[in-house]
């Protein structure tokens, strides 16, 4: 009965140490442990730049948002970055209400997020 979430990942071409992670489904208290483990493993393997594609992320709650803030902090501590793209308006509203839009790097399109990495 837990929420379904899938993470699809691929190494980003043209950018060193960068991983694209596609979130598919709902991110909530029933699956944050799985997501935490998976994304932290990328960071620990040296992929310090994470680009999260939220195109197919339908839902996020406060627990899920806490994990996103954790990724952001962990990536920065490793001199990397955590960027989010393609956020649907409902999910964006939750991020905004919690006041996290100023902390998280959010892009309208995936290309913009990737380009920002290339420019850095």
């Amino acid at each position, binding site marked *: *009965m*837990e*929420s379904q979430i899938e993470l699809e990942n691929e190494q980003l071409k043209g950018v060193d140490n960068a991983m694209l992670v596609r979130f598919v489904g*709902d991110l*909530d*208290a*029933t699956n944050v442990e799985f997501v935490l483990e998976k994304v932290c493993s990328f960071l620990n393997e040296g992929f310090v730049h994470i680009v999260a594609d939220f195109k197919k992320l339908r*839902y996020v*709650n*406060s*627990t899920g*948002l*806490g994990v996103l*803030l954790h990724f952001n902090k962990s990536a920065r501590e490793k001199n990397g970055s955590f960027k989010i793209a393609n956020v649907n*308006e*409902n999910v964006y*509203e*939750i991020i905004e*209400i*919690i*006041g*996290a839009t100023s*902390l998280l790097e959010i892009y309208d399109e995936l290309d913009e997020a990737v380009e920002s990495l290339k420019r850095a």
Partner: protein
Amino acid sequence: MSELKVEVAGAAEYPNTTLVRLKGPLSGAEQAELDRVFENIIQGHPPFVVAEMSETTIFTSSALGNFMNYRKKLVERNGDLVFAGLSLDIRSLLNLLGANRIFRMYNDTQTAINAYRWEKEHLRQATHLSFPSDLKFVPAVRQFVSRITKQKNYGSRDSFRIETIVDEVCNNAVEHGNNTAGRNVELTMNIDRERVELQVTNATNPEKVDMLREMSKSVLNSPQPSLEQKRGRGLALIKMLSNDLRIGFSEEGTSVHVTRLRGE
């Protein structure tokens, strides 16, 4: 002589509505009889009419024309004429004739009456859910509530916000409740056209009561959640998404009452 049998049910049985049972064929030949029945209804019965047709055997385009005429007169009197209980074959035929653009069709009489009372009398409907104090049940609960709001024509944004409120309240109930007490988390939802009210109760963990009371006070009195605080983000989110939030602690348990007005 027409084979059609017509019964008109009393208003007392169906408040503010008139029920007309139509048994047999509606071929158009029975127009005079139906004219008399509907003229009587239009003059002296509640103008919201449910035509109960589970025993209607034929429904021709000619008969449909007569019903369009009756409906027009009822609408002029702030009423309506809807169909209930039609067989799938007749319903498909009527859809081909375009009747579904004019008449609302319901599976049964009670659904038709509920739909009317929902719209005209702001009928409030209640749902009660009881589930074990375990996080794994929460996604199904929140999605169920969201489906109800969508089915009640709340917009997708409203439904999402209500889903979020339910998720956060229920997560808190499981996380901070007394899971060893053997008590379920109880959720009551009242919904009408204008608002959703949620009441969630759970057994209180005596060791956490003071901490929860302090956390609630802090969040409820703060205009904006603090990102540094790991605890209380869910409650802050509920507060920001709701129009009214009340939390009560007692030996009986914790009770959270949330009101969310329809926004779209």
